[in-house]
């Protein structure tokens, strides 16, 4: 299986703080994999480096063959076929659900603003197709009928799903999900887990997630990297990770997750 994303020696410093320290991963095409780690480990910062929100202080990020994406702007990264969601939902909150998805489709629009002013046939056709696709995505994430709701009026779980729909709208090759189940109840989490699997199996998108819910992580990941203080302390299959003493220590040592069940129960 080929590698869709690999990071080499990625370092991100904030003044004296090294938030990401030579973090290296290789994401296999058409896989589901996770980055886990205690709070403040640097996971989100790592995602931000990949998606162009931050420029890594050092290191290389290679995407889809041999494209170097380190230091590109977020829009350029998206055009290459990467897409993401956010730990704290960041929808366009005053726009409707459909409009959010339409904005997500941005890179597939071809017509010019002049065509919009004159409402040319091409423009109308493109808008209609985009709307159709947006409604299809809305249904796909299970939000049919909620398209005209303003995003911030949607229930929490629906907002998380809408954010995924918006990310899918750009038809990415690789989808990065930052704690997609945060704030969901156990049932919703399980449902989302199945949804992520469907995404990979039916749509063929590679998924990389950051996740705290060990049930979800261990349940769907094929490969896991563990981060602590910006460094990679372990990698491997869920089974490897569950039995790795360093991982257990990192979680227990951080205090935040004492007594955490690393999903062995499943």
């Amino acid at each position: 299986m080929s590698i869709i994303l690999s990071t080499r020696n990625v370092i991100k410093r904030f003044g004296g703080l090294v938030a990401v320290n030579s973090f290296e991963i290789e994401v296999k095409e058409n896989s589901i994999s996770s980055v886990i780690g205690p709070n403040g480990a640097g996971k989100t910062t790592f995602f931000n480096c990949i998606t162009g929100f931050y420029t890594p202080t050092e290191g290389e990020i290679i995407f889809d063959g041999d494209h170097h994406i380190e230091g590109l702007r977020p829009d350029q990264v998206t055009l290459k076929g990467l897409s993401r969601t956010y730990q704290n939902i960041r929808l366009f909150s005053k726009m409707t659900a459909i409009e959010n998805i339409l904005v997500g489709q941005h890179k597939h629009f071809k017509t010019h603003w002049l065509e919009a002013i004159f409402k040319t046939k091409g423009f109308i056709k493109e808008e209609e197709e985009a709307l159709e696709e947006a409604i299809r995505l809305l249904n796909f994430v299970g939000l049919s009928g909620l398209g005209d709701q303003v995003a911030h009026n949607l229930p929490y779980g629906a907002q998380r799903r809408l954010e995924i729909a918006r990310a899918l709208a750009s038809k990415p090759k690789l989808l990065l999900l930052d704690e997609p189940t945060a704030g969901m109840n156990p049932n919703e989490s399980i449902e989302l887990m199945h949804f992520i699997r469907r995404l990979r199996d039916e749509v063929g998108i590679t998924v990389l997630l950051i996740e705290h819910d060990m049930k979800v992580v261990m349940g769907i990941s094929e490969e896991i990297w563990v981060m602590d203080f910006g460094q990679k302390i372990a990698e491997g299959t869920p089974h490897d990770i569950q039995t790795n003493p360093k991982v257990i220590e990192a979680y227990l040592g951080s205090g935040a997750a004492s007594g955490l069940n690393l999903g062995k129960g499943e």
Partner: protein
Amino acid sequence: MNKSITIKDIISKGLIAGVVILSLNVIGFITLLGERELITGWFSLGHVFLVATPMAVAYFTTKNMDYESKAKPIGVGFVIGAVSAIPSIILVFLETNTDLRQFLANVSPALTEFLTFGQGVVAGSFILLLFFAVMSALASFVGLLDKKIQHPLVTGVAWVLGIATFSEVLLIRIRDTFGRGVAKFIFEGETLNPIIALFIFLVAAGITLWWDQKGDGIKVTFAGFSPQKKKQLSKGRSLILMVVILFLPLLLGSYLTEVTNNVGIYILMGLGLNIVVGFAGLLDLGYVAFFAIGAYVMGVLTSEGALGLDIGFTFWTALPVAVLTAILFGIILGVPVLGMRGDYLAIVTLGFGEIIRVLAVSDVFKGTLGGAQGILQIPKPEFFGIRLVQPEQLYYVVLGGVLLAVFIATRLRDSRLGRQWMAMREDEDVAEAMGMNLVATKLMAFATGAAFSGLAGAIFASKLTSIFPHSFNLIISINVLALIIVGGVGSIPGVFAGALILVGLPELLREFAEFRMLIYGVLLIVMMLYKPEGFLPDERRKRESSTDEELSLAEN
């Protein structure tokens, strides 16, 4: 919901109302409006503003009050009114016994005369107290009435006050249409004949009463119409609107058309700034710069005076040049500036607006832009050999500009570009992560805004026939921004509402001109508190359900 009210509450509310009136007195607002009689021999606009505050306070205090008998809320209203008169009475006593004018220029014998109804200090103060108390009690009483009676009553009073307030303008219209005799009968001098006032009240109240009873039925039938019929009706409505817009100058007459034209210029600017601030969320405080550029380009290219280039430009050929120059400056300014966010952008654009004005005044460009003397003898537009001199003719030039701007703004709003702007306004980082180039997107907003403003400036120059640098100061930018906020940020109909309220009304109510900033301030605060989304906020378009509807129609 129902609250019991303590004596302390009543007194403190009365005093708050009293202090508001006191400040209106002290700044000279009341005296000025006191000269403006509304109904002959009865009362003036000053009286209305004087008593409006305690009446409003009394009304809202007693509206949801518990009471055993109606006497209680009415009594509370009475006390609030009486208490609210006290600060003004103290002011009257101070004024008659000391000379306050060196501190407070407007506390004059004229004010005392007005506040005491010309009845001397003691008797007058007593009358003032009673006037406030009775009117406030009346407000409380109205608050107790059944909606069925209250609504027609209030509507009737509002119509009378409205017509009386705008008497100056209406008088001219009526005189021109029905002759001097009729005008003189309705408005004696410039104030409303009491009998006519009563008649207006009865008609307005009567119609409201009738509508309240029958109207629901009509609304129900309307809701029951089929979609096709509804469509026809709304088509009919737009047709009527179009005819009205087309023949508006005939309806309004010269003076009002002139006012409308000025409002139109502001609407044009508002539509442009609405794209920049409302759609794209870029706070541009130097928007007047593009207005100035448009005006100066028009001036330099077409002026028949000493400064005119005299190279054969007419209004119509100079117009696109003015717009393109504004766009060019928009881009020149935009490229370095649009990387900045929020506050920085506001400050830099503020500076840009000032720079353009300072350059226009400066000696450096005196040879081309005329310095402080400006550019004179700019010809009015010509249309197939007819020089458009009258406001009624110029109206159509302004209308053309506004329609074009509305058309472009609407089309862009409903396109991908419009969605990009809104996304950027909501969350710039995430918008960028959707794959859009932020600088290009912002530049489009800036350039479109500049184009509309440049167009407005060019029309303005030709309409006025002379331009001076001081016409392009910061206050214009602020006015345009304020009208967008009042109308509803990001709403196209809101621009019209905002311009009518903030530009149209003050032109009709000359008395208010001096206090324009005060009224802006109060209006904006009230807006922020009670209607933060503006008078005519933007409504999100329904997309999902609209296609559902079309689908279901297609299935039938």
